[in-house]
């Protein structure tokens, strides 16, 4: 439970939150060094802004909101370094999934799943999801992460990644197709 009196105690931040932050940020950036860097930056930004902390949010939520911004900034910087996205022909990408009439190719069509019923299975599914996400192609992975882990909407994601909406919709479609199929394969 959070304390009712929310007072920032920077000398306890590392003990209290660094582990949680690490476990949160690592799957989101997929890189150990960057994860640690973002945690450090978060603590330093928080320290600088500490007089602005009014204790309305819990200390933990406050730090995590700074961390979330750091993650999004990281994706933004990465996009700026990358330059303009050129997308392969839009018509061709999903031949893997659909036939020429746009119907599911049989071996790629969704099969029945057993819905996880207990925590362990749910944990197992999350492990699978994370594995599949790590194996998405670069931009698909970024789009998927920002959409489903950071829960940004399409307009925000287009801005962060410097991509057009039409690129976005194609990328998220591919990412969803790929993720579903990967999770299904790994679950069996």
């Amino acid at each position, binding site marked *: 439970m959070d304390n009712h009196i929310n007072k920032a105690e920077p000398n306890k931040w590392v003990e209290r939150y660094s582990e949680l932050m690490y476990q949160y940020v690592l799957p989101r950036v997929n890189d150990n060094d960057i994860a640690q860097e973002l945690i*450090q930056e978060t603590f330093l930004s928080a320290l600088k802004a500490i007089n602005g902390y009014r204790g309305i949010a819990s200390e933990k939520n406050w730090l995590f909101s700074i961390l979330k911004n750091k993650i999004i900034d990281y994706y933004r910087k990465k996009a700026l370094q990358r330059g303009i996205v050129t997308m392969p022909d839009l018509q061709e990408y*999903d031949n893997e999934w*659909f036939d020429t009439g746009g119907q599911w190719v049989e071996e790629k069509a969704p099969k029945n799943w057993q819905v996880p019923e207990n925590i362990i299975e749910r944990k197992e599914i999350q492990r699978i999801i994370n594995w599949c996400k790590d194996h998405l192609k670069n931009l698909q992975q970024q789009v998927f992460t920002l959409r489903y882990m950071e829960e940004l909407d399409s307009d925000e994601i287009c801005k962060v990644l410097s991509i057009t909406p039409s690129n976005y919709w194609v990328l998220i479609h591919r990412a969803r197709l790929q993720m579903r199929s990967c999770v299904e394969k790994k679950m069996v």
Partner: protein
Amino acid sequence: MKKFIMKYLMLNCKDATFLMSKRDEGKLSMIDRMRLSLHISICHLCRKFEKQITEIGLGTKNVHSDFQLPVDVKSKLKKVLDEMGNSLVENF
């Protein structure tokens, strides 16, 4: 009649799965929303796709790493924070 509907009113599975993400953000026209609902109502594969993607979305939100932050990294973080804290106090 069914063939007629399939051909002229229905989306195919590729378009239907494409439009689902747009619909989730309220970015479909009325007519596309209707076409999508119609497709989902008669296509069990796309229905499955939709359900499973929802499942994955929920799971993704809660993904956390099991890795532990190495102790030396923690002490390094503490040191950096302390130094920064001291320099802030000095500047007052």
